[in-house]
């Protein structure tokens, strides 16, 4: 019987010839990521296991993303303690303020995730790594500490669900729209808990790495264990010059077994929006057009990449953001920031009246940089919209694609980018 790509990776990385759903395996981990607000605890736990050196200093990746730049003294002190502990363990790859980015962006962009391997991180959106043909999995600090000590993590082999994506991407329709569409179909933490989700078909072959990252990123919010796109020529071209190690092509067998399969035709997919409070309360944009809002936000590990900033610039060039809207744009990493600067996107956005902030998780985690206050209505290209997610419980968050945010920010009300005059 054939195996899915996730089963193959779990078999290869646990030294077995095959695995089946339900089996429990200890796999070798390619990279272990931890970040500023949990990292110190991770290292303390690691030390308590009786080890002094991590399994591989090149493969424990440390990132400052949630707390930077520190908005208050408490966070500044936490960051100082974090820096001490990273230094103490002589970690090779430390992406601290100045070289920072959102951890999941850094992991893929800097080549710490390799196709055919398993990487874990202490933040829920580690599922993003599936875009590079890897198993990316979110864990708590205990699992990360164990992996730092041993290079291993335990997994139960998940059963698989396939999403076969056909047709062509329509203008101004993005991977985020597909993510939100699937969320509406399968429900937030609903039918897909514990599953591995595999995306394939012509609609995936034609999708950029940035789009694949968006798609895999939000599989955690479907409740899935991981989401994965098998490596192809797009992956290969992207990883050229980035990959921190050798890797080989890997794909599901023809006769691999899927618990369920769904086909989605992109010719029927338009801009999609999640209404406030519940991620799966998604509607085609037509049903939300005209809704007024006062804050616009584009950034996060879901939609803060160069391609996202490009579409903002394309739509907003020569236009002015509506006077009743404040817009904040936060590139996902310093690399994205610099690339967007050089390409002129940031200049376009600033001319349109957007505020650009330094790469971090920003208001998505509700911690700092443009958090929502009472009565705010936020149109966000982020990943979660539950009450209080971006700050006040008395704020409403609509989730959508960067293209919808761009067109809507100009009009001051939710606007279909396909009918917007650019």
């Amino acid at each position: 019987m054939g195996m899915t790509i996730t089963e193959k990776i779990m078999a290869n990385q646990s030294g077995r010839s095959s695995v089946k759903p339900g089996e429990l395996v200890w796999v070798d981990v390619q990279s272990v990521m931890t970040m500023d607000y949990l990292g110190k605890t991770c290292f303390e736990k690691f030390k308590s296991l009786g080890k002094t050196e991590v399994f591989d200093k090149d493969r424990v990746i440390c990132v400052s993303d949630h707390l930077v730049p520190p908005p208050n003294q408490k966070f500044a002190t936490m960051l100082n303690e974090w820096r001490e502990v990273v230094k103490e363990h002589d970690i090779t790859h430390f992406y601290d303020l100045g070289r920072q980015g959102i951890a999941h962006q850094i992991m893929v962009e800097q080549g710490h995730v390799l196709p055919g391997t398993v990487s874990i991180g202490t933040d829920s959106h580690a599922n993003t790594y599936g875009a590079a043909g890897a198993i990316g999995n979110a864990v708590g600090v205990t699992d990360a500490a164990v992996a730092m000590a041993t290079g291993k993590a335990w997994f139960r082999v998940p059963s698989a669900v396939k999403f076969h994506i056909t047709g062509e991407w329509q203008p101004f329709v993005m991977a985020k729209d597909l993510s939100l569409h699937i969320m509406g179909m399968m429900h937030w933490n609903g039918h897909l808990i514990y599953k591995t989700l595999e995306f394939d078909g012509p609609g995936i072959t034609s999708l950029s790495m940035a789009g694949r990252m968006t798609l895999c990123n939000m599989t955690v919010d479907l409740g899935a264990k991981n989401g994965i796109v098998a490596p192809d020529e797009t992956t290969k071209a992207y990883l050229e010059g980035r990959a921190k190690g050798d890797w080989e092509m890997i794909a599901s067998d023809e006769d691999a077994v899927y618990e369920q399969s769904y086909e989605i035709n992109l010719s029927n997919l338009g801009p999609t929006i999640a209404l406030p409070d519940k991620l799966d309360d998604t509607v085609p944009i037509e049903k939300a057009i005209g809704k007024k809002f006062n804050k616009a936000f584009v950034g996060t590990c879901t939609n803060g990449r160069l391609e996202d900033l490009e579409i903002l610039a394309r739509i907003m060039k020569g236009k002015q953001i509506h006077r009743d809207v404040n817009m904040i744009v936060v590139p996902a990493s310093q690399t994205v920031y610099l690339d967007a600067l050089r390409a002129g996107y940031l200049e376009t956005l600033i001319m349109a009246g957007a505020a650009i902030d330094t790469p971090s998780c920003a208001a998505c985690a509700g911690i700092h940089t443009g958090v929502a206050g009472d009565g705010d209505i936020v149109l966000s290209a982020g990943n979660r919209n539950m009450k209080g997610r971006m700050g006040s419980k008395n704020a409403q968050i609509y989730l959508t694609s960067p293209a919808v945010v761009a067109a809507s920010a100009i009009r001051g009300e939710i606007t279909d980018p396909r009918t917007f005059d650019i």
Partner: protein
Amino acid sequence: MIKGKCWVADDYVMAYNIIIQEYWTTAIDKEDNSRWVMAGVHEDFNSENAFKDRGYTFIVAGHNFAGGGKSIEHVIAGLMGAGIKTVFATSFARLQFRNAINYGLPFVTSKDIDKDCSTGDELEYNPQTGEIKNLTTGKSFDSLPAAPFVAKVGQAGGLMNYVRDKIAKGEAIT
């Protein structure tokens, strides 16, 4: 055999309501995390030690207990600090399911339990057979037994102890 009072939750009790945002960046500590555990789940629990002082031993929940995608272990530490010995639900969110296994707090899947228990009912759970008895109503429920690995980690008092012991003995981790 574990015996005690249960608190019955709804579907979709979210991890970020079990531990609310202002405590995400605090230390992971059973005693400390338990003081405000469940603060965001119900208005009645939104004061210091409010949930803990009610003295529940079990939680009975529906679909996707502890979901919403937070990986923080404060959730499990807080429940344990509040005296919770086992959580029964029809399904669990995977991140906290994993954390619970790693901490040795049984998260036990039981198909219909949410329909036939009320807050304050006295339950008795037999981890060996998986049988859950509602002593108040006289009803019984089956549950899924823990996988052998999960049971081993539970017996060791959590993954840290399990791995620490293996490292000390120089044994392979399998």
